[in-house]
């Protein structure tokens, strides 16, 4: 019970944080709330991952994967650039902490901690990149496999339509 309450508070915190940052990078008003939702989902997945003992790196991967998935879905539903949701949504996962700690320990001259935080930062940044790669590729395949962006909306490519285009040429 306590865990559930803590998770709820954290997820709400992430929502508020991502909402603020979406506002900060001048996301249009109607998308700010949705960006916040994306961030909240990412935090929820991350927290669940940590609590079930998946470890920091795998949790980050799953979190980034879900954030990227929801961003792509929202982008297609609301016909807006994917980055609107992705940039703010991914922020809680970005290893800002690790980056700071790495440099902090470099300056302090503590090599052991430097190595630890440096490796962790690289791992997390790597899995975030991997998650974004995966989702970009999956949705890219979806586009080729029958769904095409036709100026204002996504349409299913029908054979007769392709034929008519050929006729024009």
């Amino acid at each position, binding site marked *: 019970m306590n865990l559930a309450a803590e998770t709820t508070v954290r997820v709400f915190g992430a929502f508020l944080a991502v909402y603020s940052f979406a*506002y900060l990078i*001048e996301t249009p008003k109607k998308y700010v709330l949705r960006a916040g939702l994306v961030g909240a989902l990412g935090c929820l997945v991350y927290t669940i991952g940590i609590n079930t003992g998946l470890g920091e790196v795998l949790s980050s991967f799953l979190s980034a994967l879900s954030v990227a998935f929801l961003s792509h879905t929202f982008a297609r539903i609301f*016909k807006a650039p994917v*980055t609107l949701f992705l940039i703010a949504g991914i922020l809680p996962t970005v290893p800002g902490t690790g*980056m700071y700690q790495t440099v902090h320990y470099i300056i302090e001259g503590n090599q052991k901690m430097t190595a630890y935080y440096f490796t962790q930062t690289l791992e997390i940044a790597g899995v975030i990149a991997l998650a974004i790669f995966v989702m970009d590729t999956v949705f890219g395949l979806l586009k080729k496999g029958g769904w095409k962006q036709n100026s204002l909306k996504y349409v299913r490519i029908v054979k007769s339509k392709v034929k008519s285009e050929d006729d024009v040429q």
Partner: protein
Amino acid sequence: MEAEIKTTNDNCNKIMQLALDAGTVLLSNGAEIWRVEDTISHICKAYQVDDVDAFILSNAIFITGNNDKEAVFAKVKHIPLSGVHLGIVTEVNDLSRHISAGKYTLEEASTKLEEIRKRPAKNPFYRALASGIGAGCFCYILKASVTESLLTVVIGAMVLLFSLWAEKHSFPKLVKNILGGGMIALLALAATYIPFKTGVSVDKMIIGAIMPLIPGVAFVNSIREIANTDFLSGTVRMLDTIMVFMYIAIGASTVLSLYHGLLGGGF
């Protein structure tokens, strides 16, 4: 249909200029490379200029266009790495879709683009507030206490105001971020002198407060550009991200080290 096809030299120039302007606006406000490429090709296609080549880097656009009748349009445009305004990116994206759907004439599109480009940034006060709340929430997510989070709200807001001020006076990126990091550390250290019942942790406040300075847009865009095989631009932006991270951390750590080293952690 026929009315649209008569592209005179004048028109070809204007069309290409519109496409180039749209690309410039997109690129300078934080769009990805392929979005710029797509927008340029959509606009040119919509106005019947077929033979178009655009080569886009993270800070430049090279474009040539030809309609087989008149002189070739060729231009190189330098666009310095600059700020972020996703609202403008969205608007230009919509504009390009509407142009593709044939809803705008050339003049209308040019006026609309000019209108979009002049869209002002949000009020610095609200942005500072957003920055503060964001920083505070991040601090709270990282398991800080409520007191620390509230202090971080203040620090985050002040740092954004500093950052906006530095941008206005066109400070170099290095100076801006090192000073920003140093300022965060100073403010966090100052906060520890406020007498509370429970002590506050400097580290957690610093980690929360550096979030508004972190170049999230450049980070995500660089990854997606590399994923999309725009290696050149992706690498440039990735390097930009890493350097900014480094500057902030160096600024903050230097202040902390000086405090602990020279002053022995207290006065």
